[in-house]
């Protein structure tokens, strides 16, 4: 399949009054056409900042994309000017945000907010945009579209608003849809509706999807490739089956063990990860997971490991081979 997006050594920092926050520290990944990539990690691990950097939506200052390249169809998005970027944002790469309550403008009708993208990017007339908006609302499963066109966001429930956000993102038929925890604020039954919708639309429209979440369950049923992030680094990546069946990073391993399952009875205590996620104000010289890791060796304190192959299409950043417990 053709390469759609290539992120190389992306580094994003925030210069705050307390010091420099090392949010994203040189991450690289690729996305092929029609592929679904899952990015998992806890709050503050840099997963959102990494995709906001790709979209160039980092507020500057305090934020700064300090290094790296984002190659989209042969063009480095970090080098294009803002006017060109606006042509790409929404049209080529669209994004759905976490909170459907705050990401819609409360004083504009739903119809107007969706048709805006169509008029700006596709040069449609108001009439054409209205037509298309009705189709889009239909596509995301919002009934009585004619009525709904003139409704305001407060007249929609949380799940419905997230559908509106998806309709908006799909308005210009982007080739990449970035979903930043789109179901975190929703109930599990509504979450199932939204995931089902995105899967259907992805298959129908052939979009590539980047889905960001802290929920390892969602990714298991949705993604082909998975990236696990910790403290602004990619600590493991691979095909979805490899990550879940054969996790090689102590963090991935511990995270999977700490999750109870709805489809299995459990009598044992939950495995825990001691300590707290790291403070990204200044990073330790070694591996950022050292303080919480069960496999730590001397070298972990001094040098941060780079991603190394651990199997076909499977890479891990760890000095220890967790299958043997010995240093590599």
């Amino acid at each position, binding site marked *: 399949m053709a390469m759609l997006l290539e992120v190389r050594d992306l580094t994003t920092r925030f210069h705050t009054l307390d010091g420099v926050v090392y949010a994203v520290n040189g991450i690289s990944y690729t996305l092929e056409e029609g592929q679904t990539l899952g990015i998992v990690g806890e709050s503050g691990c840099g997963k959102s900042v990494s995709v906001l950097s790709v979209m160039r939506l980092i507020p500057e200052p305090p934020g700064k994309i300090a290094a790296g390249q984002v190659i989209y169809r042969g063009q480095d998005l970090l080098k294009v000017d803002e006017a060109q970027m606006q042509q790409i944002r929404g049209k080529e790469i669209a994004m759905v945000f976490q909170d459907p309550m705050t990401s819609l403008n409360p004083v504009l009708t739903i119809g107007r907010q969706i048709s805006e993208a169509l008029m700006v990017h596709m040069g449609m007339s108001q009439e054409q945009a209205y037509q298309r908006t009705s189709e889009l609302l239909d596509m995301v499963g919002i009934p009585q579209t004619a009525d709904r066109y003139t409704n305001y966001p407060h007249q929609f429930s949380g799940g419905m608003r997230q559908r509106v956000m998806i309709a908006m993102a799909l308005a210009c038929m982007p080739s990449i849809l970035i979903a930043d925890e789109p179901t975190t604020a929703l109930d599990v039954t509504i979450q199932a509706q939204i995931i089902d919708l995105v899967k259907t639309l992805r298959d129908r429209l052939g979009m590539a999807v980047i889905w960001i979440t802290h929920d390892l369950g969602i990714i298991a049923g949705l993604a082909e490739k998975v990236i696990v992030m910790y403290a602004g680094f990619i600590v493991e990546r691979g095909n979805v089956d490899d990550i879940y069946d054969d996790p090689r990073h102590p963090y991935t391993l511990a995270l999977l063990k700490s999750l109870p399952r709805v489809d299995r*009875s459990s009598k044992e205590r939950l495995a*825990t990860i001691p300590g707290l996620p790291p403070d990204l104000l200044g990073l330790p010289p070694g591996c950022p997971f050292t303080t919480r890791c069960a496999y730590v060796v001397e070298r972990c304190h001094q040098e941060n490991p780079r991603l190394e192959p651990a199997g076909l299409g499977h890479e891990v950043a760890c000095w220890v081979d967790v299958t043997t417990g010995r240093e590599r």
Partner: protein
Amino acid sequence: MSDDQVLLKVQDLKKHFPITRGILIQRQVGAVRAVDGITFDIYRGETLGLVGESGCGKTTAGRTILQLYRPTAGRVIFDGTDLTVLKGNALRHMRQRIQMIFQDPYASLNPRITIARIIGEPLRVHKLASPQDQVERVQELLHLVRLNPRFINRYPHEFSGGQRQRIGIARAIASNPEFIVCDEPISALDVSIQAQVVNLLEDLQDQLGLTYLFIAHDLSMVRHICNRVAVMYLGLIVELAAKDELYDHPLHPYTQALLSAVPVPDPKAERKRRRIILEGDVPSPVNPPSGCRFHTRCSRAQERCAQEEPTWQDVGGGHFVACHVV
């Protein structure tokens, strides 16, 4: 189980919030029927899970049981005493034995006072310790929830979310309660911190002989921590059973849909799972649907579901369900 093993009996409990119109003369024009007649027992030493989607009334149920909201109707009998008729000192005295852990560890701790005062408050209110003994007791409590006792003079903002939740737990167990309502105690925490807090709650239950009502929407965690689980929909309990029975053989169509919607962190299992996708949203509790409240979203609804309210029936082995088609 025999009656002496029942710690708490909830009988036909209702909590309606009035909707009023008018500025000077307020007329009641309707009611939000948040909890609309729930009945269940909680046994000594067990953890009963109460699950459901947001707005189903599970938090209101927990607060009404504790008399933080006065019920519209029904009885809450705790160890033989009806809490709904208690007032003033008698109720305050009972509160020593029933406590609560709140959902949001950021909103439930007063930012202006030290954690010594936060955790010591129940001791002061119930006169359980002299001022000298209080410090010692608070340190002991901090040790119990695995926080450093030296933190005693710090303020809430100096702690992380998981640590704050531990402070909330220390406060809840300070008065040596028998029963604790845990209202979504882990939903605001990071994945790697949730397991720590759940294990702590389990350890405290063993050490102190606590009984929990565990309100949550994370069905995987509920299966792990609870002995029995009750499923709520629009102010009513639709199904109640021992946890493995409920998760392995759910009978109510709503329970089935709810459980099928939970993703499993295992790609192979995910591919095999069949999702029951519910249409639409939860209807408003101001105007709940007639008959069975779930009939508007139920794939197996029949004519009678829209007319008759289903009865609460025992299908054997302590498995209760309210549905016409079961």
